[in-house]
Each structure stands twice: as structure tokens, then as C-alpha cells.
């Protein structure tokens, strides 16, 4: 039996109790703290507060090796197998069967065959190079490696993400065999239907907290799970909607846009001053749609027009010069040059305007940044502070300031309030509204369905890379969206 009450920075109070022989599912959006939680259990991170009880005793897990010694194995999402080695070599990587420094290949092969057979893959040869295996089979290798240790708990981080339906079925068979042998499984996913099929109990994470701990799967309605996963702390902070005048011109037109293997046939248009929201669960393709409109991904079908003129496919430069701005999903890795000061980040998209013959006028840049700092109440109000030192909400404001300075007609906002605390969220919402009122056509993507509904004039419900329906935000509520999404995903 394990119990964790962890307080790592990305986690703020998680209760989790796992029983022998059960499949314990952990559900949560991107960034909810799932990965941090499993890394804490796997000995990659150490908790600041709280404790981990293992078999009734308080334990410290300083390293991954220590976790394995206790009997905790982890299968990461990015499969951690070495492509250049054979299956057998991968399975015994780090604990090679050896005598006097020489590997005992035949014994390793024999034990590998045994493990593979136990996992229902007896036909795989231990001598096959792992790089030549499919994702599903690599996962089997990863699992076999876990089993090569004497483990009592195996953590699987979104194991189904890379598998097709048939392979998932096989995976579930393997999981059931493990639990029958008394091994506990922590199964991480954001696919609700899988939890129904394989889970015994469930813990829901949101913003680093457990919003539900150890609920029995069979007795918990899906709706309750989603509510706990998406949360509702954003209620009533939305500024009142301003109706878009009927004669406002269409600024952004997206027609039959598609990205092979991700989404298809996406069409919508946004008028000046209008906010269109994409609602859907993680993995529905919403962020990809935004990035493709922007040209950050090269569309395989369809067109995007701004002010009636088509954008070049796969060209961010073309989108930006047409007046389109993107505030990307991952602020730190996609949005900001973290080491550089605020003003550099603010003028990044429009620096040629602050230059004569290629020579920058830093004073003018600072002035422009200071104006935005004042207008957006960005803190600290010092244009020379490195972007890295700012809070999430203020980093988001840098990105909005960047596009305000550039002067956009279309703003694409992906998760504009992720990692932003509640107070700052209200400010961001107000800003988004003001940007719309100033005539921008805005498209917003958020994991919080409530947020999409609260801000958008028009909502597109997205599931499995398809737009299920388009309707005014006033005509649908969160439950309505979820009903649609679940039907759409099941179909």
C-alpha cells in the first residue's frame, strides 16, 4: 500500500492511495501535475512536503534506482528504450546479467523470452533491434523491463497515447494479468473511456491538487470526473460580453483546413470584434488547429484568409505580416526568450519598426514596452527585467503586449490563462475583451470549457480532429459541450 502527500512546486497537495492488485487511474489535463506526481514516485523529483508510505512505512525515494529497489517501476510516455540495442539488451540495461564483466547473452535471451511470453508477445525475438519495433512493441519491451525487476507497483504514463484500438486491447489484457498477480498499476491517461474499461479506482488532478482521491470508477459518473478535471474556479469573473455589430467585416476565414492525421475539414470565420472559442478535450486537435491557422504547422488541405487574402501555407512570416498574432500554448518554450529582458520580448515581432537601416533604437523600444507595461499593468514595471523572472500572468501579458505593439487584426490565444493565478486571470479576461472591442478577431483555445464559454461569442466544439458543431456561446453550457464531446469521441 502506498500513500503520497506531495508538495513539489508543480504539486500542491496530492493524496493518493494505491492498493495491491488494483488499477488506479490518474486523470488530469496537460499541466495538471500528472507527470510531476509520477516523477516523485519514481525518484526523479523529491517532495518538499508530505510523505510517501510504502507498505506501511515512510520512505524516501532519492533516485530512480531507489524506486526500483522498493519495487516501483515506471513506464514513461516518451518510451525510454534505446533504439540501437536489442530487446534483451534493453530489458537488462543497467542490471545486465554478467559474470566477470562479460554479459551472459543466452541467459538474458532466455529470461527475455519468458518475460515476453508472460506479456503475450512470445513471438518477438530477444535479438531484434528495438529501433525496428512498432511503438506498441516498444511499450511491451518497456514493460518487460519493468517486470525484470521484482516489482510491486508499475506506473504507466499515458501508455495508450501511441497505440491503436487493437493494441490498446492487448495492453489492457497485459494490465489485467499484472493485477491478477497482485501488482498494483497506476494508469495515467486523459481518455475517459479507457478508465471505464480498465480502472478500479480513480484520482483526479487539477492544477497540482487532487480534486478527487480514490473514487471507485464504477460508481462515479463521467460528468463528475470532467467537472473535477476542468474545475470551476473561474466562475463569474468574466467581463460582460459586448455584442458584435452585425455589419462588422469578416477578418479571418478558415476554409476546409486540414492537417493529415490530426484534424480535417475545419471551417469557420471570425468577424472584427468577435471572439471565437474552440472547446474540446486535450488531444482533440484544438491547439494544432490554431498553430496551423498561424502557419506554424503546414496545412495539408484548405485555406486561411485574412481580410480576404490567402496566407501562404506553413509560413508564420506571411501570417504575421498579414496581422495575425499567436500566443502559444507553452509560454516558456514557445513564446518567450526567457534570458532576454521584457522589452526585447515585447518588440520581438516588430523590431524592424524600431530600427533605421537595421540599427535598433533601444530607447524607442523601451518606451514602447513601458507604454504597454503601464496599459497592461505588467509587473515588475521594469522593461529591463529578464522575462524569466516574471510570473505566469505577467509573462502572458508580455505576449499580449508583443502583439499590441505589432498591431494585429487577428489574435490566436492558446491557453491564455494556463499557470496564471485566479486574480491575474480576471485581468487577462478583461484584456482579451478589450482587444476584441478594439476590432481584433480573436480565436481562443482553453482546457477550461468554462473559460471558452465565458469569453467567446461563438463556440466550436472539437473532438477527434473534427468540428462537431458551431453555435453561439449563449446557446450552450458546459454540460452541453461535454455531452457533445463524449458522443463525438465515442463515435
Amino acid at each position: 500500500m502506498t500513500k503520497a502527500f506531495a508538495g513539489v512546486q508543480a504539486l500542491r497537495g496530492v493524496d493518493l492511495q494505491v492498493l495491491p492488485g488494483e488499477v488506479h487511474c490518474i486523470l488530469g489535463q496537460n499541466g495538471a501535475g500528472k507527470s510531476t506526481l509520477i516523477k516523485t514516485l519514481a525518484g526523479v523529483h523529491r517532495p518538499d512536503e508530505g510523505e510517501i508510505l510504502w507498505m506501511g512505512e515512510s520512505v524516501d525515494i532519492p533516485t530512480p534506482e531507489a524506486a526500483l529497489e522498493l519495487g516501483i517501476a515506471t513506464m514513461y510516455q516518451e518510451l525510454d528504450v534505446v533504439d540501437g540495442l536489442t530487446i534483451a539488451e534493453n530489458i537488462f540495461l543497467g542490471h545486465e546479467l554478467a559474470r566477470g564483466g562479460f554479459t551472459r547473452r543466452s541467459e538474458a535471451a532466455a529470461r527475455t523470452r519468458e518475460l515476453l511470453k508472460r506479456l503475450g508477445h512470445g513471438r518477438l525475438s530477444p535479438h531484434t533491434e528495438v529501433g525496428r519495433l512498432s511503438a506498441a512493441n516498444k511499450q511491451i519491451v518497456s514493460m518487460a523491463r519493468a517486470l525484470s525487476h521484482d516489482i510491486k507497483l508499475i506506473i504507466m504514463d499515458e501508455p495508450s497515447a501511441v497505440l491503436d484500438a487493437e493494441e490498446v486491447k492487448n495492453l489492457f489484457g497485459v494490465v489485467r494479468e499484472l493485477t491478477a498477480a497482485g501488482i498494483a498499476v497506476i494508469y495515467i491517461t486523459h481518455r475517459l473511456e479507457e478508465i471505464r474499461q480498465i480502472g478500479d479506482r480513480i484520482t483526479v488532478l487539477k492544477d497540482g491538487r487532487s480534486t478527487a482521491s480514490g473514487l471507485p470508477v464504477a460508481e462515479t459518473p463521467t460528468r463528475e470526473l470532467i467537472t473535477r478535471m476542468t474545475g470551476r474556479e473561474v466562475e463569474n469573473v468574466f467581463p460582460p460580453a459586448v455584442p458584435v455589430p452585425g455589419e462588422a467585416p469578416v477578418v479571418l476565414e478558415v476554409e476546409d483546413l486540414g492537417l493529415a492525421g490530426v484534424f480535417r475539414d475545419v471551417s469557420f470565420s471570425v468577424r472584427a470584434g468577435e471572439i471565437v472559442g474552440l472547446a474540446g478535450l486535450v488531444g482533440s486537435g484544438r491547439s494544432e488547429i490554431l498553430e496551423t491557422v498561424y502557419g506554424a504547422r503546414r496545412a495539408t488541405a484548405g485555406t486561411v484568409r485574412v481580410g480576404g487574402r490567402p496566407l501562404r501555407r506553413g509560413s508564420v512570416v506571411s501570417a504575421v505580416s498579414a496581422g495575425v498574432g499567436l500566443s502559444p500554448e507553452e509560454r516558456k518554450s514557445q513564446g518567450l526568450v526567457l534570458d532576454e529582458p521584457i522589452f526585447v520580448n515585447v518588440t520581438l515581432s516588430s523590431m524592424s519598426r524600431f530600427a533605421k537601416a537595421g540599427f535598433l533604437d533601444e530607447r524607442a523600444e523601451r518606451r514602447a514596452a513601458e507604454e504597454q507595461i503601464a496599459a497592461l499593468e505588467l509587473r515588475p514595471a521594469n522593461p529591463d527585467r529578464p522575462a524569466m523572472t516574471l510570473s505566469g500572468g505577467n509573462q502572458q501579458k508580455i505576449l499580449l503586449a508583443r502583439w499590441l505593439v505589432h498591431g494585429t487584426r487577428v489574435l490566436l490565444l492558446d491557453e491564455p490563462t494556463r499557470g496564471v493565478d485566479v486574480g491575474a486571470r480576471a485581468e487577462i479576461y478583461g484584456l482579451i475583451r478589450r482587444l476584441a472591442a478594439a476590432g481584433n478577431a480573436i480565436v481562443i483555445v482553453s482546457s477550461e470549457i468554462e473559460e471558452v464559454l465565458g469569453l467567446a461569442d461563438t463556440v466550436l466544439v472539437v473532438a477527434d480532429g473534427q468540428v462537431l458543431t458551431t453555435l453561439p456561446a449563449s446557446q450552450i453550457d458546459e454540460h452541453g459541450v461535454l455531452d457533445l464531446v463524449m458522443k463525438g469521441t465515442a463515435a
Partner: protein
Amino acid sequence: MSEQTTTAAATGPSPAPAGGPARGASARAGLAGILSGSVGRNLGLVVALLLLVIVGAITAPDTFLGVSNMLTVLRQASIIGVISIGMTLVIIAGGIDLSVGSVLGLASVVATLAAVQDLVDQTHWIFMVLIALGVGLGAGLINGIVIAYGKVVAFMATLAMLVAARGLAEILAERRTLVVGDRGFVSALNQDLLGVDILIWIFALVAIGGWVLLNRTTFGRRTVAIGGNREAARLAGIDVRRHTMWLYAIAGLCAGIAAVMMLGRTTAGTSTHGQLLELDAIAAVVVGGTLLVGGRGTVTGTVFGVLIFATLSNVFVQNNLSSSVQAVAKGVIIVIAVLLQQRFAKPTGRAS
């Protein structure tokens, strides 16, 4: 954790575990705060250079401190210095150029081919200069196109150019040394200006040009942005590929300039010119405080890096120590410099 530590390390939420050892961190954070600034890092370089000068003055008091010896140091630093300026820009953008030494050799050979020498005889030696620069620029452009548009890793693309350019130089020169026939060219590059060699002036001009480009232009800003966060730069609407192409073109142009200087100093073109120069340049850039992963670096630091190595080798020569001993010392300096960088460079909060 002490109050001081928290403020010094206030870099927003990081995914790293915070449970690490905090003892003695506040004292180190203060020192790190000073040394991680660009002033601080260059200050460290000034101190290192001064130490070398003091060692030189003590061990070779009669010869080392004279003006003529100082000019010798600068003259020896000049060619590698020009190469290092181009290298600095490439490395700040997160790239690397291994081909500069070979390109120098190739440019020196092409500029001294019989056909070119004939042309120069009939017209003016300036054509020899232009052709050397053209070869450098062209090779750099090829590097840039292969890297930016062909999406070949910079290390491999420029390694290929290193091998191919050297081979082409050997073919063209038929493994002979091609003597520069034009007296005008040789004397132009070996004259003094205000008592200082032309080569040193060229180095100074290129260094100033590089500094201005990096610190005062949109080109420099984009270079830093691409090195600091390539994806953010791309999503901000910067044409990262075209910019990358021009960066390698500039590195190639610097190799072309260095080839002209080499022709002036040795009065001959040969395929062996510039061998291993790329490694000296990278060492000077890194010792100068530029991060190999990109995003941070200075031209001033590189100039100091070049001067440190040139002074070091001068001190060794003054004391009649072998070049092998010198090579060992160089290696030690590089390792120490990188270790210091890792200690004092602020952790970038880049999401993993």
C-alpha cells in the same frame, strides 16, 4: 533557505526539485550574480589577461613588455581574431562552423591561382582581395543553405565543408605553394598605419563591426533571440531559416577576410593555410564567455579570449617553452573557463 538566497534565485517556478542543498548558497549566489553579468564575465577575462601579462613580465622582463612585442601579440591574434568574430555570431545563434579554417585555405588558393594572378597583373590587386572574399562568402552561403533549408545539423554540414574545401584547395593548388606575384598587394598588407600593422587594424575593424552588428542592429537581436529560443523566435514571425543562412555566410566572409590577411603575411596561398584554426576560434569564443548552446555571448569576450591565447603563446615563446607544453596549457585553460561558466551561468528557465 535564507532570504538572500530566495531573492537571488527568484526565477519563477522551475520544474527542478527545490529540496537541494541550500548551505552556502547565498554567498555563492552573490558572487554568481556579479560574475554572470556581462560586465562580470568580461572582468574575469581582464583579470586572466592581466595575470598572463604579469607572468610574462616576470619571466621575460627584457622582452615581454616592449611595444614591439605587444604588437607581435596583436599581429598573431589578428587572423584567428577575425575568424572568431564570425564564429561568435554563429555560436550565439546556437550553431557551429567547423569549416572556417578550410575555407580560409581554399580562398587563399583560389585567390593565387595563375588565372587570378594574370587578371591582377592586368588590372589591380583589389581583385585578388575580392575573389578571396567571394570564395569565403560563397562557401559560407553553401553552409547556410544546407543547414537552414536542407535541415542538416550544423556540425555535420560544416564538417563536410571542412573536408571538401580542403580537398578542393589541394586539387586546385596541385599541392604546391602559390606565391603572390603582385608587389602592390604584399606591401599594402604589410605596411603600418600610425605605427600599427594593417592586419591589426583589420582585426579591430572586424571586431567593431561584429560588436555593432550584434548589439545595435535587428540582425544581432534576431541572432540572440534565435539562439535563446528558436521556436519562440519562429513563432514571433522571424524568418529563422533565412537568418541562419546569412549567419553562416558572415562566418564564411570572415574566413575570406582572414585568407586575405594570411596571403599578406605569408605572401603565398596554399591548401594547408588555416588548418585547425576552427578549433582555436571555438576555444577563443567559449573562453570569451559565449555559451555553446546559444543565446548568450559577447564580441568583447571573444576579443579577450583571442588575446588570452595569443598572449599565452607569446609568454611560452619568450620562455623558450615548446609548443607542446603550450598546447597542454591551452587545454587546461579551456576546461577551467567552461567549468567557471557552468558554475556561474544562471540556470535558464527553459522548459524541458
